[in-house]
């Protein structure tokens, strides 16, 4: 009998939770705010679904009731992606060591 592909996805999911668990515990507490902003940015990879949704219409009707939601989701996710990564960058650039003092 063949294994349902769902089981493979579930395996990836469960293993990723464990990876996440160990990786996040190793994050230094002083970087917890950048951690939140970067997780924010990467969870916006949901934009993948938004792109599929928005291109689901045919060429005569680009905007139908289903693709409209896709386009809206693209904008929302894009705000997060750019905003999240850039603000993380901005924060991380501020963390300096003592030796670097003027």
């Amino acid at each position, binding site marked *: 009998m063949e294994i349902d592909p769902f089981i493979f996805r579930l395996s990836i999911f469960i293993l990723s939770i464990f990876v996440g668990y160990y990786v996040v515990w190793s994050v230094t507490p002083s970087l917890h705010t950048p951690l*939140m902003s970067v997780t924010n940015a990467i969870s916006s990879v949901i934009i993948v679904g938004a792109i599929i949704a928005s291109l689901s219409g045919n060429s005569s009707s680009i905007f139908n009731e289903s693709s409209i939601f896709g386009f809206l989701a693209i904008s929302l996710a894009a705000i997060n992606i750019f905003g999240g990564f850039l603000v993380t960058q901005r924060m991380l650039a501020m963390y300096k060591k003592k030796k670097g003092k003027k």
Partner: protein
Amino acid sequence: MISANLSAVFYLISGVLFILALRGLSSPETSRQGNFFGILGMIIAITVTFFSIGNFSTGFVFVVIFLLAGGLVGAFIAYKIPMTAMPELVAGFHSLVGLAAVFVAISAFLNPDAFNLGTPGNIKLGSLIEMSIGAAVGAITFSGSIIAFLKLQGIMSGSPITFKGQHPLNVIILTSIFVLIYLLCKSQSSNIFWILLVVSFLIGFLLIIPIGGADMPVVISMLNSYSGWAAAGIGFTLENTALIITGALVGSSGAILSYIMCKGMNRSFFNVILGGFGGTDQLGAKKNTEQRPVKSGNADDAAFLMKNASSVIIVPGYGMAVAQAQHALREMVDTLKKNDIKVSYAIHPVAGRMPGHMNVLLAEANVPYDEVFELEEINNDFANADVAFVIGANDVTNPVAKTDPQSPIYGMPVLDVEKCKSVLFVKRSLSPGYAGIDNDLFYKENTLMLFADAKKMTEDITKNL
């Protein structure tokens, strides 16, 4: 057009890059590289999606327009936002992830063909369950984050909003979500799908309103976690590895942060979620029982104490963020260092309104991160320090947490500030902190209260040094 297998491999690569992005945050040196990995992963995921659809007609142009429009707004916000507003920003961003998840789920429900999930009214059972979970969690994330945002921004009062029958109502609504998902799977009716969304928005709202301002670190972490689970739910629907990996990472990340925050307050997760810290009875009992004498001083006294110290520990809290005093504080510390005084910073896990809030503000003010210590690292040093400078923190320094089993904060890990030879406590008034209890530290022999705005007081001290 590239094959489904090839694009799946690329999605896997971007998932791995996201893991490396989080891994990089284990130290500030590797963190910037980590962020770069994250960006790279995102670029790969988006590009692969375009190629796997292989449709570069007018629709594609619109996709790029919407993407850039959102991107511009995001970039603008990222550059403009002051560091003190970071908790609001993160809450706002969470709400967007939640809403995006809802929109994708709606789109998939209306047009399942596009996602290979079946036809409208006849969607595969598994996909329907996955998408309704994704949509419900997304909706909860959205409305919950909006409330968190309004509370942090001060548009909505930070005090808990409670009413009679709140918990039974929440339980009923949460149960109804499961019932609705069940009914949806049976009937495939779009009406039930819409009701499910409305009910989920409602419960997100109801879950967050009873939670008070100082519990926000837990709430933000929790919503961070939810946004991950919502993404994972959608990832299952779309059968997309990158989304599943990311959702799991973000979900567990938020959960761990919530756990750390709860531990920092010695409260159980459910206790925080159920809201209302330091019950009203406690407040009434403790209030006005006695007027104990306090010693108060001015900037001159504080400067004198610090000048004669050989080591100073600074304890910042939310008040520092409110007063925007971090730069003034850094200037004061620079002056102290010129006088050969050893200065370090002590950060309580729940200081501020989100995990790591104080660290970011100090980093913004150019405080080197190796002078900033966590509670466990520095707590033994208070006994050997000459001066503790408490600026904007309150409950996290309250010795009552160690001595009085009656106190609502009993058992919470606190900074042993009272062990210092002298304590300088910058505060605007003697009012109790968030927990609604008096801070014993105010009345200690070796405490000098400095009643003033944190920023102004710090500047005045610098002048007097």
